[in-house]
């Protein structure tokens, strides 16, 4: 048993530190992209996860799903002659996008059936907090006067074969966003499998004795473990 509030017992010296500096959002996105297997069907959540698309190898046959009703979504439309902005074609963030060859369109019930039914291989979401048991909080800060909005976040949380989170490891006030137990309202229970952050990659989940450090960036595992206490 570990006496660390977040991390499972492990040989911290064996965890590789693979970058001299903490990762930028683009670098986190690239690292997420590297772990996505060729041929995967992937949903990228609103916000920073959309950056992952820029780092997927074009020949890997990775297919993007957008929950507003499309497979084989292409990059953002720039409005140029090659990719004009089409008001009928957006991603889940309502930004204009393009269509790749092999695309298909479907309605909302079919789109969420696809997601909830376990047909997507990977979903990448942002988060306010992730717990060591894989609980996800990413839709509501819990502030009493906040207007809540959930969108497809809870559907994505239960549906994907592999759900990973992309976020900074520490909030602006310095507190870890990886927590023993989420204090913000939950999006899903035990649904996150891996967290990609600027400082480290960690595996989480209901069957682990604590978060497991996979790789660190700009900090050694031992130093990070100390910061996470």
């Amino acid at each position, binding site marked *: 048993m570990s006496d660390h509030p977040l991390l499972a017992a492990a040989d911290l010296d064996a965890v590789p530190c693979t970058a001299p500096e903490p990762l930028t959002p683009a670098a986190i996105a690239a690292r997420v992209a590297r772990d996505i297997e060729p041929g995967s069907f992937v949903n990228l959540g609103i916000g920073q996860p959309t950056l992952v698309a820029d780092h997927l190898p074009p020949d890997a046959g990775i297919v993007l799903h*957008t*929950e*507003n*009703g*499309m497979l084989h979504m292409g990059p953002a439309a720039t409005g140029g002659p090659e990719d004009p902005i*089409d*008001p*009928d*074609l*957006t991603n889940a963030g*309502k930004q204009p996008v393009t*269509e790749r060859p092999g695309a298909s*369109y*479907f*309605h*909302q*019930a079919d*789109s*969420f*059936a696809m*997601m*909830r039914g376990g047909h997507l291989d990977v979903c990448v979401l942002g988060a306010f907090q992730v717990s060591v048991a894989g609980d996800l909080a990413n839709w*509501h800060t819990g502030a009493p*006067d*906040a*207007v*809540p*909005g*959930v*969108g*497809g*976040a*809870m*559907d994505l*949380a*239960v*549906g994907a074969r592999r759900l990973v989170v992309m976020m900074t490891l520490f909030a602006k006030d310095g507190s870890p966003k990886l927590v023993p137990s989420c204090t913000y*309202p*939950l*999006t*899903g*229970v035990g649904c996150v499998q891996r967290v990609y952050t600027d400082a480290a990659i960690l595996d989480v989940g209901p069957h682990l004795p604590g978060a497991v450090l996979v790789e660190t960036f700009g900090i050694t595992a031992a130093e990070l473990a100390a910061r996470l206490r």
Partner: protein
Amino acid sequence: MIRRRRSVAPMTARVCDDVDAALADVPDGATVLIGGFGKVGMPVALVDGLIRQGASDLVIVSNNAGNGDTGIAALLAAGRVRKVVCSYPRQTDSWVFDRLYRAGEVELELVPQGTLAERMRAAGAGIGAFYCPTGAGTPLAEGKEVRDFDGRPHVLELPLRGDVALIRAHRADRLGNLVYRKTARNFGPVMATAARTVVVEVGDVVEIGALDPETVVTPGIYVDRIVRVP
């Protein structure tokens, strides 16, 4: 189950002269399903018509709760809406909803997007209720029955029916068969099955036989009224 009020008029009578004719009988207190994902696929002319028409005390079911000062936002601003059922009211330009919500002047039922779609599908498909894993263990499952299937908790969800659905499609034939365009398809085909009276604005009305039967997305059986809004 949707018990549709069927007009007995000839089959091409579904095409209305204008938006106002198509919406004349929407009653106060109606539950109105409104298509669109943000502005994409939004039946703008029908929502504007609903504002002119004057029905009040409405329950609006839509993915979002209005953008800027037009459309659903204008309907809200006019005080016509008692309750909004949606997945994502909070947007950068949802100031009308935000103000009314904070002032306690509009009720909100927040539903995960997929559950919103599935509840309308259930209404249209004659399903009495369904167990859905989405939201289990979260605040949105509070007060709902939860039951395990296959070792996972599922939330009991009930059908969501409309008195009226307002949707936009790309093209209709005179029988009401519809096709959509790209991601503007979104909620249209589901809402078309889930309301007693379905009103569709379309860019284009074509003759019977002009749509390939293999490509029809919403069969005309679901469509009561069509208005051409190019």
